[in-house]
C-alpha cells in the first residue's frame, strides 16, 4: 500500500501562538480518513497546508509524493490536477448556472469526468439550469463537491462537507462518498459529525491544540471497543442499568433470574461521540 499523505513534525504559528504544534499524520492511498477535533484545534490550518493554500513553519509534508510548498509551475499544475478541494464557505460562481459552473471547472483538467454525469452523481440533475446563487445551502455544497470531483482527483479534501444538510441529504451524500472511495479515491474528511466519521471513515484522528491526540478505526478508537458497556432493563416497571465489562455475562445472569425474556433489554457500547467527548473532556 502506498502513502497518499505523510506529515511529520508539522508546525504553524499565527502571530506567535501555535495553531499546529508538532503534528504527525499518515494517510494511505485509497483510505477515507477523518480528522476530528474542536474548533480552533488546528484542523483547517493542517488541511490548508496540505492543499498548498498555506505555508508551514516547520516539519515535513508530502502529498501524493509532492511537497505542497514546492509545487510550482508545470509540475505544480500536474500535482493540483490530481487533487480535489471542497472548502467550507465558497460562494463563488453565483451568476453562473450549475451546469455552466461544472462545465467550466471541468476544462481545467487533463482528464475530467463528464460534467453531466457529475451533476447527476451529486444529485443536482433537476437544478442544472438554476443560477448558483439561488441554490439552498445544502445544494450549494453539493455543487462544491461536484466541482471538487470533476477533475477525477486521486485525493479529495472535504472540509465539513455536510454542514447544513438535512438528514436525508446527508445519507445521500454519504453514499456518494462511499462510491468515490470504492473507485479508489483517497479522501481526507474533516467533520464535526461523529456519526459521519463513523459511517465513512476507515480511520479517524482527533486533533487537539495542534497535535494528534488519538488515532484509530472508528470501532477501536480511544479504547472504545474495550470500554464498559451499559445494560438497561426494567424490573416491575422500574428502569435499571448497569455498566459492565462483561455485558454477555450480565444478560445471561438476568435471563436466568427472569426465567425468560428480559423486559426492555438494551446493551450499548459508548458511541463514537461519547468516546470523543470523554477524550476531549479529559484533555481540558
Amino acid at each position, binding site marked *: 500500500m502506498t502513502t497518499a499523505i505523510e506529515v511529520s513534525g508539522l508546525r504553524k504559528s499565527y502571530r506567535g501562538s501555535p495553531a499546529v504544534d508538532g503534528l504527525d499524520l499518515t494517510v494511505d492511498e485509497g483510505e477515507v480518513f477523518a480528522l476530528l477535533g474542536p474548533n480552533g484545534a488546528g484542523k483547517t490550518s493542517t488541511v490548508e497546508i496540505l492543499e498548498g493554500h498555506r505555508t508551514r513553519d516547520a516539519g515535513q509534508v508530502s502529498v501524493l509524493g509532492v511537497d505542497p510548498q514546492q509545487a510550482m509551475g508545470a509540475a505544480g499544475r500536474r500535482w493540483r*490536477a490530481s487533487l480535489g478541494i471542497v472548502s467550507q464557505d*465558497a*460562494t463563488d460562481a*453565483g*451568476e*453562473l448556472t450549475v451546469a455552466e459552473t461544472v462545465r467550466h471547472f471541468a476544462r*481545467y483538467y*487533463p482528464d475530467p469526468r463528464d460534467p453531466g454525469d457529475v451533476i447527476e452523481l451529486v444529485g443536482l440533475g433537476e437544478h442544472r439550469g438554476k443560477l448558483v446563487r439561488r441554490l439552498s445551502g445544502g445544494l450549494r455544497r453539493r455543487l462544491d463537491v461536484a466541482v471538487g470531483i470533476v477533475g477525477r482527483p486521486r485525493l479529495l479534501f472535504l472540509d465539513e462537507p455536510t454542514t447544513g444538510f438535512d438528514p436525508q441529504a446527508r445519507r445521500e451524500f454519504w453514499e456518494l462518498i462511499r462510491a468515490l472511495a470504492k473507485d479508489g479515491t483517497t479522501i481526507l474528511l474533516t467533520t464535526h459529525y461523529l456519526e459521519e466519521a463513523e459511517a465513512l471513515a476507515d480511520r479517524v484522528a482527533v486533533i487537539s491544540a495542534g497535535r494528534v491526540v488519538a488515532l484509530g478505526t472508528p470501532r477501536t478508537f480511544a479504547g472504545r471497543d474495550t470500554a464498559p458497556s451499559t445494560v438497561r432493563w426494567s424490573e416491575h416497571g422500574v428502569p435499571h442499568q448497569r455498566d459492565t465489562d462483561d455485558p454477555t455475562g450480565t444478560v445471561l445472569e438476568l435471563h436466568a433470574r427472569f426465567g425468560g425474556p428480559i423486559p426492555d433489554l438494551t446493551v450499548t457500547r459508548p458511541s463514537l461521540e461519547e468516546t470523543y467527548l470523554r477524550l476531549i473532556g479529559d484533555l481540558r
Partner: protein
Amino acid sequence: MMPGALSLGFARADVELRTFFRRRETVVFTGAMPVLILLVLGSVFGDGNTAGVTHAQFLTAGMIAGGIASASFITLAVGIANDHENGTLRRLRGAPTPPVSYFLGKVVLVGVVSLAEVALMFAIAMPVFDVTLPTDAAAWVTFAWTFVLGVTACSLLGIALSSLARTSTGAAAMSNLILLVLQFISGVYVQPLRDLPGWLVHIGALFPVKWMAQGFRSVLLPDHLASIELAGTWEHGRIALVLGAWCVAGLVLCVTTFRWRDAR
C-alpha cells in the same frame, strides 16, 4: 495533456463576461451610469458654446474617458475584491490553472466592457448632441493609443486598489469616490480647466483621467480648440508619457500588493 493557459484564459473570459452582464448592479453602475451622466449633464449645460463647439461635445470626450476609467478601474477594483470575498481566487489557486489565465479573463472583460462603453457613448452623443466621428486615420490612431494606455493604467490601478480595499463594499466606495473626484478636477465635467483653482488642476494633472480626457478631446474636437487647453496644444507626447508612467507604476503596485488569499 494539461489545458493551455490561453484556452483557459478564454474560458475565464467567458465566465467573467457572463458574470458581469448578469449582475444588474455592475451593468447599471459601471455601464449605464457614465452614459446617464452624459445625457443629464449634456442636456442641462450642453447648449453653451465655445468657438463653435457645444459644451455637450466637450462633455462627450470627457465622459468617454470617465466611462472607460469606470469600466476598467471600478470593474477590476470591485470585481477582484469580490473574487477574494466569495472564494473565486481560492478555488482557482487550488485548481490546476496558471495564474495568467485569470488575468487574461479580466483583460478580455475590461476590453469588451470598455469598448461597449465607448460604442454606447457614441450611440447616444451622435444623435443627441451632434457629435461627429473623426474621419482621418491619424485621429483614430490617437484614439486607439489613448484608449489602450488609459484602460491599461486604470486596470492596473484597479487591481492594486482591490488589494488595499480588503472588502468589495470598501472597494466599491473607494473606487467610485476616487473616480468621481478625479473626473471633477480633470476637466471631465468642468471645461475649460482654467475655470478651476490652479492647485486642484495640478493635483488632477498627476492622475490618468485628465490626460485620457485631453486625448479624446484632441480626437473629437476641431484642432483650433487646442487653444483653450491649459498648454494651448493637445500635448500628445505628454499624454503618452503620463499614461505610460502610470502603466509602469500600476504594474509595480499590482505585483507588490496582489495576494491570492487574505493573510490571516
